[in-house]
């Protein structure tokens, strides 16, 4: 069975641009979460979506937004990119609520120039 898949794997943007990252959960999983991992740190929670509704949000500015589609895939959008947005963005899926073990994709490496 395919695991969590994310695209693209790498991305380079410049300050002020916007970016869209994509995630497909494990088949049968209805919850998708997004995390930001800055180099040398643990991942930080950004969003959780379950059944296409936002169920949780971390301490990130409104430049960050996300949505979940009827097939449970998800997009993370970041507007007005800053240098500090350079990070590995990880998507995780789980069967239902956030406290279940989450299965992570390999991430999208975003570099801001």
């Amino acid at each position: 069975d395919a695991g969590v898949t994310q695209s693209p794997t790498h991305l380079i943007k410049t300050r002020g641009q916007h970016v869209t990252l994509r995630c497909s959960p494990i088949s049968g999983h209805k919850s998708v979460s997004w995390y930001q991992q800055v180099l040398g740190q643990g991942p930080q929670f950004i969003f959780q979506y379950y059944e296409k509704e936002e169920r949780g949000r971390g301490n990130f500015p409104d430049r960050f937004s996300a949505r979940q589609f009827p097939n449970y895939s998800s997009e993370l959008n970041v507007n007005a990119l800053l240098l500090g947005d350079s990070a590995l963005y990880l998507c995780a899926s789980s069967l239902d609520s956030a406290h279940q073990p989450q299965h992570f994709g390999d991430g999208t490496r975003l570099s801001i120039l």
Partner: protein
Amino acid sequence: AQSVTQLDSHVSVSEGTPVLLRCNYSSSYSPSLFWYVQHPNKGLQLLLKYTSAATLVKGINGFEAEFKKSETSFHLTKPSAHMSDAAEYFCVVSEVGGADGLTFGKGTHLIIQP
């Protein structure tokens, strides 16, 4: 609010010797606790989880962890280190029913000496 403290940023052991990675947690409610491993340029792999069943939890690749409520600890151990264990390890807490996602520690970098 929930938080995790990993007590060592780096741990170095010789191949074949025991591994101990230390983690303390703070949680307002009954927590779920996890250990994840991350190899370079890869995503996170779940090693084991504690969800209020047995306090000694066995995971993959010979790892295990013991939940000690009185000490608010969830240390990760392995009897004999292998070169392939070299990676970054994260202790993670999640509150049951919470909407705050997973809270990660800062990670412990495990180095295996030949």
